[in-house]
């Protein structure tokens, strides 16, 4: 009896291992088969302004338009440069606002069970169709402290009893969507550039210092955000096995 049980367990373990190996083959093969890609970026139209920590009751986040910064164009350019070694990158047109408007459901299981909302948008909104895959870069979300979420591009003022701290963030995630079936082949949120700060976010972020105050602070802010994206994008694409490790 015990021998039968052991045999069944061994069989189950072998089945799981084989299925997993098959799944890996599928993902790896699908990435290998991609020759032409189009890049969609929709993270840089707005910057959130958040006060966190010891804040007053009713304090809500606000936002400012940064569309003049041309962040999405810069991201497409940089991703094109990074991916050109491996793929033929073709320019695509899309409604940026439609991609920027999509949000994850607050109910976690819904996100697991429902079809990825970007699949349908790529199918209906991106031209030209027919490329092997589409690289879609959109806003990601992170916890800040305990009871607050931040997402996308933003500036945070974190208040403590004895001091205030500033933080900028560029939180984004990258999807590889199959150009024929529109399945999500791979999805990855950009990781923090370092894990050494004491105020942590689950994505690229950096401290704000006093150089962000005064004349030309907007340009400095833009430069700092661009730097976060420029340094994190190669790492993220490399983690997704879309390019060679840096």
């Amino acid at each position: 009896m015990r021998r039968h049980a052991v045999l069944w367990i061994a069989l189950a373990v072998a089945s799981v291992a084989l299925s997993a190996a098959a799944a890996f083959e599928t993902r790896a093969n699908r990435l290998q088969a991609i020759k032409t890609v189009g890049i969609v970026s929709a993270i840089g139209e707005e910057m959130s302004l958040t006060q966190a920590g010891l804040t007053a009751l009713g304090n809500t986040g606000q936002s400012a338009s940064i569309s003049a910064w041309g962040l999405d164009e810069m991201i497409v350019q940089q991703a094109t440069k990074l991916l050109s070694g491996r793929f033929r990158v073709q320019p695509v047109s899309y409604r940026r606002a439609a991609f920027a408007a999509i949000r994850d459901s607050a109910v976690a299981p819904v996100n697991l069970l429902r079809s990825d909302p970007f699949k349908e948008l790529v199918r209906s909104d991106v031209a030209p169709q027919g490329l092997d895959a589409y690289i879609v870069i959109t806003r990601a979300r992170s916890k800040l402290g305990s009871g607050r979420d931040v997402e996308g591009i933003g500036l945070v003022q974190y208040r403590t009893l004895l001091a205030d701290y500033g933080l900028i963030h560029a939180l984004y995630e990258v999807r590889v969507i199959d150009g024929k079936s529109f399945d999500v082949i791979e999805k990855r949120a950009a990781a923090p550039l370092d894990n050494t700060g004491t105020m942590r976010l689950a994505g690229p972020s950096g401290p704000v210092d006093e150089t962000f105050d005064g004349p030309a602070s907007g340009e400095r802010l833009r430069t700092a955000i661009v730097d976060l994206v420029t340094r994190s994008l190669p790492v993220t694409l490399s983690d997704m096995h879309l390019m060679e490790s840096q």
Partner: protein
Amino acid sequence: MKQFDEAALDRAASAQQSLLSAFLAALGAITAIPQSASAQTAFTLPAPPFDLPMLPSPSGNWTVMVGIGGEYTPDFVGSKNGKFRPIPIFSIRRAGSIDQFRGPRDSASIALLDVGYFRAGPAFKYVSSRKSDKYSELTGLGDVKAAYELGGFVEYYPVDWLRLRSELRQGVGGHTGTVADVSADVIVPLIQRLTISAGPRFTWKSTKATAPYFGVDATQALASGLPMYDARGGAHSVGFGSQISYRINPQWEVHAYVEYERLLGDAAGSPLVKLRGSSNQTTIGLGASYSFDFRIR
């Protein structure tokens, strides 16, 4: 108000520009923060030979936290004596994932619903068995098996620094009653690295959750020498908890906490508590942890 180069911003959104200007001016009070060290990982592992279906690829940076803690806690609920026990600390998570605020009395829980200031989901608590031969005060009272409490929690942050939490759990095993916990925590970051929190706690338990631990039936009365006692449910305890955590540097963190609980109602009135124990229950804990990153190709 200090100057801000607005030309770089979208000129069409002047109201939003002034908002950003004001925000940046407010940040003028921020002191310069030294640039943190560049990303350093302890080691790099090769990519696994296969991925599991439905799960994201493990490639990327991960943070491991290891440490050791200790907790001085009553021998059993209602005991006047306590013991110190070591608690290992271990966690592994994607680099940058945030540790949510957690109280020492919180059950293990998963936030299936998370809208930032409001979280809810299933909760689970393990209540260890109570062996009568382990402590002299329990002689003759018989064993109570380990209980598994399953239920849910809701958590609400009216502001970033105040957490209100409630749990409702149903026991199976050692007790088959219902338990409700309510707590509030004021979370005050003194500086970026040092946070203190404190707040009141209240617990309600049904009769089926109270009787196995505080009731004394005829057989137990004969064997233990305690008077018979019919323990009923109701307000079980009220208390106060506080914790402090200090991040010495990005790798090392130390924490300490104290939880005081005063038993109420039939729990406090039980002869086990009145004659052989105490209705004052104090738990003290401390620990230190070290975090490091590693990378999976």
